[in-house]
């Protein structure tokens, strides 16, 4: 028992100074996450106190009343009404101390936000995230940008099965349910790149449905939004990127992906500014040529069940290289 406690303390201490833990609920970076963390810490110490008292009673009973030769037979006690009342009331009283702040926090974190909050709509798909900013009329995927220190209201829903939107440093999860919209609200406390992932089992690639939230200064957020709102960069003539645009336009890509002014597909992520994202495949791989090429050639081998199947007939290596150049040019 003592050993377990020691392990816990050591591990918690280790988690404070060890790795960066980008997805930790123990390192809150928003008011919402902090509220949950404060409540959890509060309950944790109550639980730890109860744990120590009850386990100690158990251990003392075992040691003190262990069988010894010559000890007279135990008195056959059958119960004690006052003690029963005492140990019914004691936990009940402790639970009041847990329940009151719980209810207070439930209502404080119910997803309400001021009217001028930045609004983001999250749509879960098997297995990627779509982000829409209705006030800005822009759409992106897998990497959400929000300004630091400003209230953000996230409306969460799903296009297919149930997912759950979870970015632990910024707050607790909410399910993305088809036909229903759930809300969370938070105000990020510090700039940074936070990671999250789908928390509700949603099929073959549930493990591969990750996301990033980039919290940045107000001006940087404004710059990002301006870039996103602009049309796609036109590839320089007579480069691989221009050939890539032609390959994109004549291939099945256009059926699923939107590139403003090029294609209207809505089944897969919007690629208008895909070159500006740091990751591809819903946070699975860095956005570099090697990974993009592998992804375009055979997505299901990298993400089981992915709807983007291998092209028939397969794209040539030259076509893929051109596509990679084109997509990377879409900053």
């Amino acid at each position, binding site marked *: 028992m003592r050993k377990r406690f020691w*392990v816990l303390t050591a*591990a918690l201490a280790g*988690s404070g100074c*060890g790795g*960066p*833990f*980008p*997805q*930790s609920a*123990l390192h809150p970076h928003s008011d919402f996450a902090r509220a*949950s963390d404060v*409540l*959890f810490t509060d*309950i*944790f110490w109550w639980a730890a106190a109860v744990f120590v008292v009850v386990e100690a009673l*158990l251990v003392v*009973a*075992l040691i003190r*009343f*262990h*069988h010894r030769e010559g*000890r007279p*037979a*135990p*008195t*056959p006690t*059958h*119960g004690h009404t006052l*003690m*029963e009342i005492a140990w*019914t009331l004691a*936990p*009940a009283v402790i639970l009041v101390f847990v*329940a009151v702040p*719980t*209810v207070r926090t*439930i*209502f404080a*974190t119910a997803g309400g936000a001021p009217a001028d909050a930045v609004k983001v709509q999250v749509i879960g798909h*098997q297995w990627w995230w779509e982000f829409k900013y209705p006030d800005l009329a822009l759409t992106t995927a897998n990497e959400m940008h929000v300004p630091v220190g400003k209230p953000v209201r996230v409306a969460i829903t799903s296009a297919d*099965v*149930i997912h*759950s939107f979870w970015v632990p440093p910024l*707050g*607790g*999860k*909410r*399910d993305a*349910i*088809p036909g*229903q919209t759930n809300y969370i609200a938070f105000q990020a406390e510090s700039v940074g790149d936070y990671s999250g992932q789908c*928390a*509700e*089992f949603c*099929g*073959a690639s*549930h*493990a*591969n449905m990750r996301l990033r939230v980039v919290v940045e200064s107000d001006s940087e957020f404004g710059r990002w939004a301006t870039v996103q709102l602009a049309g796609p960069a036109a590839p320089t003539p007579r480069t691989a990127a221009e050939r890539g645009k032609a390959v994109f336009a004549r291939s099945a890509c256009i059926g699923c992906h939107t590139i403003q002014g090029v294609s209207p597909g809505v089944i897969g992520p919007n690629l208008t500014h895909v070159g500006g994202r740091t990751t591809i495949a819903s946070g699975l791989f860095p956005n570099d040529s090697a990974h993009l090429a592998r992804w375009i050639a055979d997505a299901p081998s990298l993400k*089981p069940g992915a709807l983007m199947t291998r092209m028939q007939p397969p794209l040539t290596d030259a076509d893929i290289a051109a596509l990679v150049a084109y997509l990377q040019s879409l900053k």
Partner: protein
Amino acid sequence: MKSWLTTTDHKRIGLLYFFTAFAFFLIGGIEALVIRAQLAQPNGHLVTAETYNQLFTMHGTTMVFLALMPLSASFFNYIVPLQIGARDVAFPRLNAFSYWVFLLGGLFLNASWFVGPLFHAGVLNVAPDGGWFGYANLTERQFSPGPNIDFWLLGLQILGISSLAAGFNFIVTILNLRAPGMRMMRVPAFTWMTLVTQFLVITAFPVITVALAFLMFDRFFGTHFYVSQAGATPILWQHLFWLFGHPEVYILILPAMGIVSEVLPTFARKPLFGYTVVVYSGILIGFMGWGVWSHHMFSVGLGPIADSVFSATTMLIAVPTGVKIFNWIATLWGGDIRGTTALHFAVGFIAMFIIGGLSGVTHASPPADLQQTDTYYVVAHIHYVLFGGTIMGLFAGIYYWWPKMTGRLLSEALGKWHFWLQFVGMNLAFFPMHLIGLLGMPRRIYTYSPELGVSDLNLLSTLGAFLIALSILVFVVNIVRTRRRGQRAGNDPWGGATLEWSIPSPPPVYNFSVIPTVANRLPRWKTEHHEPMRDPPATPPAPIHVAGGSWWPMLAALGLPILALAPLTHTLWLAFVGVAVLLGGIYLWAFEPFEV
């Protein structure tokens, strides 16, 4: 051989339940080991995503429905009639029917691992893969077109029939077959918890049956019970599933609590402290277990009022649970404690269940739970409750009653090895999961990124899992060794207070040569109020009629998997064959000559 196939003897059926459930326990354990091997390091690739999803689905389904519930059932069968002084259960042939349905349902579910080729898929391709909780609408035909979910829902429907039949049987048995003088408040705690469990079974299983019937209609006949595009909501499934699922948690834990309430008094040589309170808190838990289901759904967005109410009811249920723990400690207090293996496991149950209960309080609080639900933190919680709790409790029961069931004592030395390996193994396997979850690792993922910083903790957890496997191996060696070389038990190796210890081990087919008359709660003990009872004579003073066996319960049971094959293979005539076998079996059973 024939006598085992046709047996209606509750003791033999109890042993059949034990060995079948233990085999499924080993299968579920192997599934767990593959899962842990996959997660031993980040970006693991021992198995594919699809195989992993089948593994965790079958691990959960197997452990809940094919291992823990039927392991408890083996004690209901073997011990309850002995504790109440009965010759058998109320409906012996229905009891045999329950067992055969359970066996066939378990085989039906597990057949899904191998029969892929019959469905134009590979082996290890068509086992259930939607999680043991099978959330709609992922389980709809649109998103799960293969036969995987069909195996799951049809298998669970079959198993539900087994549980329901057994539930009614044991309720009638406990209420009607008690020995003269055994008033309800003289019934041993284990039998009391069995009774509460059976009431939960007969009320909770119809709910999952309805939920599964809706799903079956959606998948086979194109209805839209869980389809949001048609105006329904997949959340309906979650309400129905957890309305069953939370009482199910108590179906799994109450029998173990009953076992602990038997083992502690015997080895502390002291009556159960606060018997009445322990019994009533068990009943109270049974009732309150119905009012907390939405705490599995705090992330669904039910609104702050619903979240607050379910949070409060959930915290409230900690009170009767805490009361039980205090009474157990008070039972030990002032006793003369003999540290047998059974006592080790019973105390292990209390020590581990406290941790599971306390982590339960942390997710009774919705804002805290939103960071915990669907992460490894909850995996840690359920394993402290169901492994540290139920399995520890069941092993306490096994070491306690094995001599009664087989006539030989399990080795205490091997038993202690088993206990300590399992105790260290489970804490190594499950304690780090608390941190893994809080550091951001969701559950049910076949792979994780090294960036999360949880790789070392996962490796530790995997080591613990293999240590548990080693402990189970020691237990298997213990059983095998005991069969040949175990010390003979005699009627009562422990000095127990209840009726099962008044008869030979294993008991004769008629159990009691003379049905005892019970005058108090601890018939075989001397207390300040009474002397111990006299054990029944070794040979019956008058001939006792013992029923012969019957083939028909097994035949009737066989009809159910055949019936289930009909929708699975889209073959109408199989449905008629299944119904014919079922009805034929019931007909022959009903008109079987009374005297054999």
